[in-house]
């Protein structure tokens, strides 16, 4: 078995309903995830260290403002939220240089096919109907493992184990073979 830190995925859960936050947190913890919950999309962006300015630059320098200690492996967000919706959040993440590869899952209490399609087209990995069940959460691991593999494949000089702290891709030129 590897080190505990390596096996524990960190999920950021976004929902304006306190009850749903309690529920998703319990579901995720029961499935051995580390969980951070926030009550809005803007707080989620803040937590990720994603500031508006970063959107407008293709340069990596601004990205270094990002809190290097924040390591989120998956984002699960409610669709319907006041202010910025889960869909808006999804778009911002997919448009972000640093976070576009983080899998995003959308939750909604309403079964609207056009909504579901729009989210999936925008890059959401899954769309869960509320109330979310343990069986839904069990679908998350493959997406997380897939991202991990993808990450490893893009960096042939991949660090073994976790001796290094989160070393940013940004300082190393992407090696393509």
């Amino acid at each position, binding site marked *: 078995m590897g080190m505990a830190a390596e096996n524990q995925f960190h999920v950021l859960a976004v929902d304006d309903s*306190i*009850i749903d936050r309690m*529920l998703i947190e319990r579901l995720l913890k029961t499935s051995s995830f580390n969980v951070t919950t926030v009550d809005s999309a803007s707080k989620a962006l803040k937590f990720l260290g994603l500031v508006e300015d970063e959107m407008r630059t293709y340069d990596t320098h601004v990205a270094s403002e990002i809190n290097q200690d924040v390591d989120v492996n998956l984002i699960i967000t409610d669709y319907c939220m006041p202010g910025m919706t889960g869909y808006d959040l999804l778009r911002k993440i997919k448009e972000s240089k640093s976070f576009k590869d983080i899998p995003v899952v959308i939750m909604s*209490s309403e079964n609207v096919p056009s909504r579901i399609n729009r989210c999936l087209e925008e890059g959401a990995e899954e769309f869960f109907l509320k*109330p979310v069940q343990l069986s839904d959460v069990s679908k998350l691991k493959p997406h997380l493992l897939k991202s991990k593999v993808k990450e490893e494949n893009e960096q042939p000089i991949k660090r073994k184990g976790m001796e290094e702290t989160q070393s940013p891709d940004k300082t190393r030129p992407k090696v393509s073979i």
Partner: protein
Amino acid sequence: MDHLHRKLRDHEAAMFQQGYLDDQFSQLQKLQDDTSPDFVIEVMTMFFDDSEKLLNNMSRALEQVPVNFKQIDAHAHQQKGSSASVGAARVKNVCGTFRNFCEAQNLEGCVRCLQQLQQEYSLLKNNLKYLFKLQQEIKTAGRSIHTRG
């Protein structure tokens, strides 16, 4: 202590049978374990607080002139969502009807629905409080005698 267990079991069964609770509540119970031994009570307590706030908001909103049906619908949507999340089936169903009246901008329908909602909510809360009370009694009884296991 057996009679307490029986009381609890019967009361719980009745709540499901009479539609106060649905399978989602069972899901909450399944999520409760040693690492989170008070999960159900914590969630339901939050649900009570949240619901009471929403019911108040809906009540006040219905008294406004003119009535803002969109806002009331937003409250009903929220209440429906949280009810669904905790397995409060009857409350959830009334919320569905309530939303229909909001959409139709039917004030009388909304007022009736709110009354029904308050009623269903009250019944649920009282029944759940009794359930939790029985659970607590069992816990206490279990502590004061050295049970055979």
